[in-house]
Structure formats: structure tokens, C-alpha cells
């Protein structure tokens, strides 16, 4: 190369410390690059797993960005749909909108134009009603977003075309009459007005292929004259839109020419502000106003998980390079011996990382695009109700952001290993390979930082819990989340100090099971740094997943308790639009799966202090059979009234006091008895209720369900049985099912997003194992030569994999429980007593998945370990 004659110049720090006349940085970068690429080619296999980790992380980012684009596109399309094929929108103040429409229709280059007006209508025939948006039939059919599927477009006043769904709901077809109800304001001052009814005839049935009017429940088409009458005049100070279709001559490249824009702008008659926009520009503006940054929230939410995945990928990368540098110690020392400068070695490692980062990120973008496109391809098979674009739109951001992020993460992760590479002494080349090691132990700074972050973080979490339990939920959550994040960082930074000890403990347990396990345990401990880095990557994902599941479990339990205290029975049939008929008890009892029913009567009563009570009473035996809360009824007996602690305080009485309750007759003395269940407060026996009010009315049916049956299904059955009675059927089952569903969906999404980080971490386990296998080739061959069987070798690596994964999982689970509980205490204390549960099932699943993943991670490394023939491995220097 021509640059070999470059004069010596100021060099990177340390590059001249090799004691060899170092070439200048320009002269030295080329040999370094050539050496780096040669080294990479040699280590291609060792870099693959690290590359895959980054690839998955960047694919995650790319898919998120693409999904964001798809959402934006879908939003634009929905907004733009109602303008059909219109090219431009002229927005005016609307003061003289009729003249504006005429002027625009008369402008050169305009093929057709219409005002975008709608009227809000109530359609129906007295028994069924439906709200709909009324729009005018446009001048040109290309400005109509709806398709006509039957009949004709309205051409005379009083004719309408209705969407198929609406026609069904109103039970009308072509030729049928129905009515339009609308509110006509007679006095704008007071807002007084009257309802006007007009007869209309259905002449056409429409379809809305682009969901243009989905948000308003469908659009009814009428003649412009009718819409003029039905629609309100533009409000002063508002805006008014006119959609225009342009002649081909007025368009260049699909966009209106500047000349036609100017002409349209000049044509506007109304005073005040006006503008000319393309439909796309308009959609962009509206969606920005409408969502108010909601897209951004979605992006930030999902990208947080992408960041976690990339952090884990970064750990895998850092670990890989740390191991590579350790394995190349001899080569690096030799290079130093023959005159390579520290700077050259440093740059060489970083260059290697950069090349890996770029290649892997490109792969990630490609994978992301493929995944997103596949999703769009299959999406139409599920009716999502949203029009989705057919192809992903690959904007520069979609490619550049993941590429930059992936490369930066890779290079940053390689900084510490690169620094280690510069620390290799030339002398190391002369020492036997076994005794070589790159910097053992960890710095004191690291220990102090980790301890500070951990302790400080947990203190903040404690403060958050305190705030949460004292009602300051917002403040508490902020403190808990921040403290949780800080302490997790502290824990992660500090794993190198304590994680090996946990591994040693688990290893000691495992080593009892046989020589292969003993070898595995010893192997896991021989390089504590590597083991902790690998396990930490898994720990992060497991911790977050466990936090979520623990929090969800606490939310579930707490909600269950709250629901149980509100609903004393499984199902309650209560007055809705109509009263509960006395026959209801029999009807409910007849439903399969209902085991017992209680007929509940009610009466109003008055206390001496003037307070009113709504007394409920039922047969004591029936109550015992239906109320599921075991001890809530314990104190109910003839002559007593159940009250909760709260109600007693409100009435200023205590358990054992006598209340004089007056109904229709004379006062009845009732002894106050305590119940824990809010739904049972003010409950008396039926006999006592009759004493208070002999005419007490039939009010409700309470029912108990077969515990083996699905409460949600039974609730639906009871609702069906009572459907035409106008009553309200409810129960904790319905609430619980609803709540459960919300929690499960949220948990599913979050765990799904976190799973990416776990997958990357498992790849990291496989990576560490295969790097170790390469490093221990000679050792494995020796073991084989002295009697280690193939399956023992496989078993040894399997135990190593499971041990590393198990350590990460066990610690992650412990941390996750802690964070989940503190989080639940902070967030849920306002709902009542928080029940802290250990989600054993989830815990077991996480542990099993992690350990099995560790096992699977050992398969490929074991295969490569067995492939090498003992003779070759023994010969290898």
C-alpha cells in the first residue's frame, strides 16, 4: 500500500510503548485491519452466537419501528378513507362555504368538489334505534368512500342508503320506511329545542370497505338537500373542509401542481384562515392531533423491552469478547513481541466488534422486515377490523436506527475486553498456556458502586412502599420503580462478587450426583467471571418476568379478596330496568350448575336517629347454603342485624348493642352482630324482616354455584335464563373473569416481550459453553483417554449449562419475588389489604424453562466437543 511511507506522527496512547518503532496511526491501521479480519475469519464460529444475540436484539427494534409505521399508516388510511379519491382538501373558516364550494368547482383543474358535511342522526321506528352519521351523496362518485351493494344511491329528498350492518339492526331493507329523529334547537340562547321526526325510505344498501366511518358507527347517505337541512351550520371560528378531485393535468407525480394549489387558495371566498392540503398531509395532521403522542407511548413502551433485550445482548457480547481475548492471550502476546502497539490491539478488538455489530445488525434488520412482512401477510386472515397496509414501509429510520443501536451496543460491550487485550504482556507468550489468565477478581470501585446502588435502590424501594401504604400511590410508584431500577443495576454490577458463591453452593449439591456432575461443578467455578456474566444475562430477564408474574398474582389475590367481600354469593339477580319477579328464584334454581338459591326480600326502615336502612332478609338456612364466605354469617341469628365494622362506626353502635328498627309497624329491637362482608351488612332473618315490614317486597335472588363448574359460563347461563325480565344478573365470577382477562392479557404481552431477552440470554449460555468447549479441547480429549464416556461428556456439559441457567433463574426468581411484592404493596395498598402470594406455578414454569433451556444450550457445544477426535485434540498445541 502507498501509505507505508507515512512519517511517524503522534500516536494513540501506549502504541509506542511496545519498544518497537511503531508506524504512524495511518500506516498501522491497515495491517491491523487485515489482521483483525483474518482473526475474525478464524474465530467465525466463536462469534456466531454473539452475532445472533445482537441480531435478535436489532430485529426486535426493527420490528417495533416497522409496527409503529404500520400503525401510523393504518391510522392515516382510516382518516384519509372518507375522502375517497380526493386529491386535495381546502380548509376554510366556513362562513361562506356554499360560495367556496362553487368557486372551487369553478377553478381550473378541478374535476369535482364537495363540502365534507355530516349530520348526526337517530334512526328508528319507535322500537329500535341507532345512531349514525349522515353524509351527502357527492357530486362525483369518486368522492364517495362507500360502495353500493344493492339498490341505488338516493336521488330525491327523503331517500337514504344505509350500511348493511345498520339495515340489519333496524330490520329494514330496500323500499322500507323508517324515521329520522333529530334535535332542532329553537333558542340558541338557552339551548332549548324540540325533537323533529321525518319519514325516510331506504333505497340502497352500502358497504364501507375501508372502514371510513367505522368510528361513527356507519354513515347514512342522503341527498345534499336533506343533509343541508339536517346538518348544523358551521360554527363560527371552526373549520370547514371541501374535498376536491383534480384533473390529471393539475397533478404532477400524484401531487397537485403549485399552480393549482395557488389557484385553489385564491378561490376561497370565506374570510379568515384557509389552507390547501393533500389528503395525506391532512391525515398526518389529524392523527398527530388525535393521538396526541399515543403512538409515541406505544413506541417507548415496546422499545423499553427492546432495550432490555439489547442490554442482555450486550452482556453476551462482552462475555464473548472477554473469552476471546483470554483465549488469544498467547497470540496477542506474540503480536506484542513482534512489535504491535497497545493502541493497535485495542483498535483491532474494537474493529472486530464494529464489523460484527454491523453485520449482525444488518441481519437483524433483514429478519425484522421479514417478520413484520410475514405478520402483515397473515394478518388479513384474522379479522382485526383495521385496514392494514399490504407491505411494510421501509423508511430510513427502520434501517438506520437498529443498525446504529446494534453496532454501538456491540462496540461498547467490547470496550472492556479491548482494554484487557492491551494489558497482555509480551512475556505472556513465553509462559505455558495453562497458567495464563486475564485479570482475575474485580475492582474495588465496582464493589463500592454496586453496594451503593443496591443499598440505595432498595432504600428507595422501601420508601416507595411506605408512600404506597400511606395512600401516596403516584409518589410511591415513582420511588419504587426508580429504586427497583437502581438496585437492579447495582445487583447486576455486583454479581461477580456473590453469584459464584451461589453457583458454588448449587454446584456442591449437584456434584454429589456423580463424577460428570463433579467435573461440571468444578468447570463452572473455574472461571467465576464468565459464569456470572452468563448467568447475569439470564437473571435480568427472569427477574423482570418474575416481578410481573408476582405482581399480577398479588393483584389477582387482592382483587379476589375485595370481590369476595363485596359479593357474599356467587350470583345475584337484582332489579334492573324491571323488578325481579317472584318466579325468578325457581328459574335460577332450574339452571344446571346452580346448587342453592335464597329468596331475598327487602324493606326500608328507619332508626331512632333518623337514619334510613335498606334491610334485606332471607331464610337463614337458605342464606347459609348460598353465602360462600364461611364466617360472614356466623353471627346472624333470629333477633340480630348484621353490620360491618364500618357501618357500625357510621351508626355509632357496637356489636351487642340493640337497635330499634322501625318499618311500617312498631319499632323492632334487633341486636347488632358483626360481619366482615360488605354485601351482608343490613341483613336480617326473613322472620325479623317480616316483623319490621310484613309487606316486605321480593327484591333479589342469591344463588350458589357448583364449585366444580365454570362460574363465568354459569353466569352467562343465568343471564340467558333471565334475559327477557329486564333484571341485572351479576356476581364475583363475572368481575373476576373480566379482571383476570385484563391481567392475563397484560401479563402475556409483557412476558412475551421479555421472552426475547431470555432467548438471547439462553443463546449466551450456549455461547459460553461452546467457547469453553473450544478452550478445553485438550482437556476433554484427556478425559476421554482416561475413561470419560461420550454420554458422561455430554452429561458434564448438560450439567454445566443447567447449573449456569439454574443459578441465573434462582437468583432472578428471588429478586423478582422481592420486586413483585414491593411493587404490589406500593400500587395495590389503596385497594385494601394486599395479599402477597408466591406464584408457585409461574415460579416452577420459569425455573423448569430456564433449566431445560440450559440443557438445550449444551446440545450444540456437546456435539462439537464429541466431534473432535481425541488424537487430534491431544496433538493440538
Amino acid at each position: 500500500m502507498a501509505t507505508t511511507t507515512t512519517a511517524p506522527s503522534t500516536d494513540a496512547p501506549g502504541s509506542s510503548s511496545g519498544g518497537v518503532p511503531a508506524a504512524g496511526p495511518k500506516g498501522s491501521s491497515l495491517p491491523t485491519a487485515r489482521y483483525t479480519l483474518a482473526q475474525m475469519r478464524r474465530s467465525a464460529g466463536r462469534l456466531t452466537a454473539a452475532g445472533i444475540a445482537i441480531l435478535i436484539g436489532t430485529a426486535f427494534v426493527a420490528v417495533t419501528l416497522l409496527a409503529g409505521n404500520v400503525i401510523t399508516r393504518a391510522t392515516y388510511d382510516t382518516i384519509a378513507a372518507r375522502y375517497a379519491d380526493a386529491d386535495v382538501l381546502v380548509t376554510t373558516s366556513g362562513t361562506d362555504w356554499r360560495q367556496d364550494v362553487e368557486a372551487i368547482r369553478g377553478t381550473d383543474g378541478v374535476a369535482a368538489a364537495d363540502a365534507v358535511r355530516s349530520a348526526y342522526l337517530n334512526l328508528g321506528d319507535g322500537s329500535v334505534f341507532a345512531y349514525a352519521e349522515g353524509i351527502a351523496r357527492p357530486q362525483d362518485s369518486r368522492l364517495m368512500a362507500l360502495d353500493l351493494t344493492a339498490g341505488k344511491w338516493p336521488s330525491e329528498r327523503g331517500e337514504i342508503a344505509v350500511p348493511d350492518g345498520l339495515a340489519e339492526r333496524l330490520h329494514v331493507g330496500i323500499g322500507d320506511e323508517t324515521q329520522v329523529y333529530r334535535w332542532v334547537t329553537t333558542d340558541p340562547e338557552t339551548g332549548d329545542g324540540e325533537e323533529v321526526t321525518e319519514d325516510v325510505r331506504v333505497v340502497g344498501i352500502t358497504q364501507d370497505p375501508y372502514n371510513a366511518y367505522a368510528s361513527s358507527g356507519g354513515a347514512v347517505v342522503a341527498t345534499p338537500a336533506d343533509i343541508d337541512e339536517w346538518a348544523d351550520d358551521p360554527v363560527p371560528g371552526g373549520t370547514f373542509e371541501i374535498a376536491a378531485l383534480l384533473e390529471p393535468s393539475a397533478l404532477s407525480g400524484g401531487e397537485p401542481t403549485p399552480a393549482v394549489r395557488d389557484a385553489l387558495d385564491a378561490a376561497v371566498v370565506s374570510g379568515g384562515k384557509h389552507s390547501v392540503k393533500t389528503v395525506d398531509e391532512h391525515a398526518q395532521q389529524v392523527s398527530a392531533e388525535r393521538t396526541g403522542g399515543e403512538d409515541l407511548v406505544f413506541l417507548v413502551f415496546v422499545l423499553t423491552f427492546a432495550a432490555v433485550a439489547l442490554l442482555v445482548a450486550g452482556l453476551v457480547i462482552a462475555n464473548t469478547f472477554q473469552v476471546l481475548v483470554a483465549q488469544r492471550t498467547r497470540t496477542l502476546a506474540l503480536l506484542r513481541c513482534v512489535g504491535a502497539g497497545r493502541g493497535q490491539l485495542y483498535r483491532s478488538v474494537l474493529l472486530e466488534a464494529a464489523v460484527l455489530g454491523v453485520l449482525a445488525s444488518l441481519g437483524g434488520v433483514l429478519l425484522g422486515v421479514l417478520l413484520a412482512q410475514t405478520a402483515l401477510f397473515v394478518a388479513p386472515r384474522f379479522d382485526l377490523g383495521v385496514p392494514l397496509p399490504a407491505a411494510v414501509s421501509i423508511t430510513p429510520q427502520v434501517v438506520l436506527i437498529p443498525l446504529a443501536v446494534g453496532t454501538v451496543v456491540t462496540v461498547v460491550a467490547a470496550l472492556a475486553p479491548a482494554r484487557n487485550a492491551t494489558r497482555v504482556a509480551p512475556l505472556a507468550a513465553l509462559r505455558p498456556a495453562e497458567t495464563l489468565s486475564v485479570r482475575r477478581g474485580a475492582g474495588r470501585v465496582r464493589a463500592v458502586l454496586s453496594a451503593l446502588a443496591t443499598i440505595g435502590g432498595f432504600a428507595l424501594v422501601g420508601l416507595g412502599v411506605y408512600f404506597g401504604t400511606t395512600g401516596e400511590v403516584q409518589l410511591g410508584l415513582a420511588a419504587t420503580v426508580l429504586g427497583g431500577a437502581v438496585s437492579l443495576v447495582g445487583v447486576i454490577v455486583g454479581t461477580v462478587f456473590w453469584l459464584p458463591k451461589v453457583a458454588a453452593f448449587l454446584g456442591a449439591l449437584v456434584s454429589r450426583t456423580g463424577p460428570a456432575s463433579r467435573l461440571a461443578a468444578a468447570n463452572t467455578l473455574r472461571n467465576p467471571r464468565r459464569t456470572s456474566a452468563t448467568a447475569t444475562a439470564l437473571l435480568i430477564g427472569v427477574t423482570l418476568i418474575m416481578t410481573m408474574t408476582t405482581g399480577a398474582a398479588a393483584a389477582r389475590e387482592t382483587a379476589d379478596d375485595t370481590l369476595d367481600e363485596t359479593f357474599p354469593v356467587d350470583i345475584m339477580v337484582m332489579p334492573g330496568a324491571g323488578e325481579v319477579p317472584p318466579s325468578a328464584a325457581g328459574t335460577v334454581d332450574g339452571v344446571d350448575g346452580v346448587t342453592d338459591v335464597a329468596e331475598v326480600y327487602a324493606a326500608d326502615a328507619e332508626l331512632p336517629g333518623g337514619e334510613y336502612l335498606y334491610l334485606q332478609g332471607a331464610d337463614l338456612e337458605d342464606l347459609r347454603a348460598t353465602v360462600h364466605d364461611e364466617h360472614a354469617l356466623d353471627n346472624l341469628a333470629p333477633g340480630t342485624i348484621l353490620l360491618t365494622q364500618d357501618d357500625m362506626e357510621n351508626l355509632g353502635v357496637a356489636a351487642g348493642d340493640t337497635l330499634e328498627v322501625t318499618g311500617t309497624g312498631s319499632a323492632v329491637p334487633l341486636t347488632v352482630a358483626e360481619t366482615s362482608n360488605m354485601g351482608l351488612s343490613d341483613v336480617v332473618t326473613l322472620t325479623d324482616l317480616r316483623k319490621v315490614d310484613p309487606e316486605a317486597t321480593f327484591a333479589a335472588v342469591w344463588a350458589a354455584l357448583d364449585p366444580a363448574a365454570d362460574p363465568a359460563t354459569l353466569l352467562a347461563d343465568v343471564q340467558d335464563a333471565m334475559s327477557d325480565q329486564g333484571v341485572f344478573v351479576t356476581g364475583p365470577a363475572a368481575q373476576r373473569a373480566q379482571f383476570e382477562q385484563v391481567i392475563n392479557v397484560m401479563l402475556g404481552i409483557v412476558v412475551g416481550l421479555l421472552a426475547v431477552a431470555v432467548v438471547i440470554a439462553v443463546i449466551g449460555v450456549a455461547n459460553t459453553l461452546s467457547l469453553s468447549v473450544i478452550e478445553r479441547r485438550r482437556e476433554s480429549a484427556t478425559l476421554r483417554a482416561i475413561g470419560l464416556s461420550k454420554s458422561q461428556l455430554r452429561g458434564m456439559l448438560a450439567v454445566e449449562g443447567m447449573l449456569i441457567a439454574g443459578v441465573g433463574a434462582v437468583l432472578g426468581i428471588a429478586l423478582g419475588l422481592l420486586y413483585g411484592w414491593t411493587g404490589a404493596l406500593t400500587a395495590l395498598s389503596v385497594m385494601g389489604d394486599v395479599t402477597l402470594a408466591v406464584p408457585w406455578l409461574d415460579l416452577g414454569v420459569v425455573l423448569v424453562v430456564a433449566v431445560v433451556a440450559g440443557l438445550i444450550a449444551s446440545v450444540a457445544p456437546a456435539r462439537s466437543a464429541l466431534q473432535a477426535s481425541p488424537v487430534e485434540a491431544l496433538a493440538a498445541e
Partner: protein
Amino acid sequence: MDTTVYVPVDGTRAVRARDLTKTYGSGEAVVHALAGVDVDFAAGEFTAIMGPSGSGKSTLMHLLAGLDTATSGQAFVGTTDVTGLNDGALTKLRRDRVGFVFQQFNLLPMFTAEQNITLPVELAGGTVDRQWFGTLVETLGLTERLTHRPAEMSGGQQQRVAIARALIAQPDVVFADEPTGNLDSRSGAEVLSFLRRSVRELGRTIIMVTHDPAAAAYADRVVLLADGRIAGDITDPTPESALAGLDALRTLEPDVSTGTTPAVPGAGA
């Protein structure tokens, strides 16, 4: 499978090779590492294999021990034909009947000397014969070193641990490939006399590859190898007779059947 306890009987053949061949590559690049070797090694004897570099010494040893597969021919340990064994049977053979000592020691760095020595027995799932262990440790002078890890021991000490590891399962035969190659002459002499004591006092059978005529002189017999064939046999060798035997190999060259030229003998030349 032959599981009889070893009984040193003079003249019993511990290891035999019959028309053993091994070729690497094919066509133009074919290398006959072993070209039909017939050789017997007596039980209770210390045999040295010598020959120029590339003559096939290591290959012969690997085939005899079942570490590598032969192209043709047979190799017997006792009455077992190792060329016909599958991996499981070979693993069992290595556990019970064959021991190895390598030039690089190849101890496991994370285990102590004692753990390294007992590893083969543990891998086989057996219990360590403490009396035999004591005898070995004492004979090899390792009593003080049992709790040390390889990194804390000298090369000679590491090699003695390796020898103890090779002998712990009381194998029928121990193969040693240049066991003194990485040692200075004093540690080398120490290791060699331990190997000889293992044969003389503990009744073991040892086959050792070496370049060094002085090392070969510790053996009861020297088998000379050149170009993948047996080229001589010296009983009760002295450094001088071993050297003379090696020198004589040079006059045999060049061999017509292979393209390889015997290299200059290594140490001692």
C-alpha cells in the same frame, strides 16, 4: 471382556499388533503412517519405542490404545481386539485396562493432585483402593503434594501425578508418549526411574515413546520404528546401543515404498 486381575507372568503378551496399517489422505497426498506393523509387547516389561520424527510412533501407540481407528490389521490388549470395539467398549477398556501419560501432562487445572489421580476410578464409578493409592503416592514421592493444584507444581511433579493417574486403575498396560519431552534432564531422570520402579516393583507393563537414547536405556527393551515399519529390536539397551540402533536406521534410507525421508533423530543425536 477380560476383567481378570493382572498377574505378571513372564512371557505373557500384554499388547500385540498384527499387520497394523494406518494411512492418511488419499491419491497423491497419501501418507502411510504405519505400513504393516507386527509387534508384541510382553507383560511386566518396560518397552521403549524409538524412531525418527514422523516414523509413526505416536500413531502406533494411539492405535494400540484404541484412541484412533486403524486402516487395517489388528491390535490386541490381552486377548481383546481393540480395532473391533465400539465407543462404549473402548471407554471401558480405557477405564480398566489402559493408562496414559502425555508429554503435556494434561492434568485438570481445577482439581488437586489427589482429585486428578483418583479421577479415572471415579469416572468408572468405582471406589479408590486406598492401599494401592498409598503405595503409588509413596513410590512417586507425592505425599506432600496431594492438596496442590497443577499450577502450584513443577513439571516433574505434574508428570508424576499423571503417572499415578495412569496407574490408579491398575491397568494391564500404560502408554507414555514422550513423557519426559517437556522436562529437564533431572526431572526426566526422576520420572523415568519411577516408571521403571512401577514395572519392577509394582508389576506394571509400560510402553513408552521417546527420542532420547538415554531415556530408552531405562527400558528393558527398545523397539525401533522407521517409515511406519518395525526396523529393529534391542534388549537390555544402554544409551550407546540405543543410539547405535537409531543411527543404523539412517543407513536404511531412502525407503522406496514411501516418499518420506527419515528426519534427523531428535535429542541425543
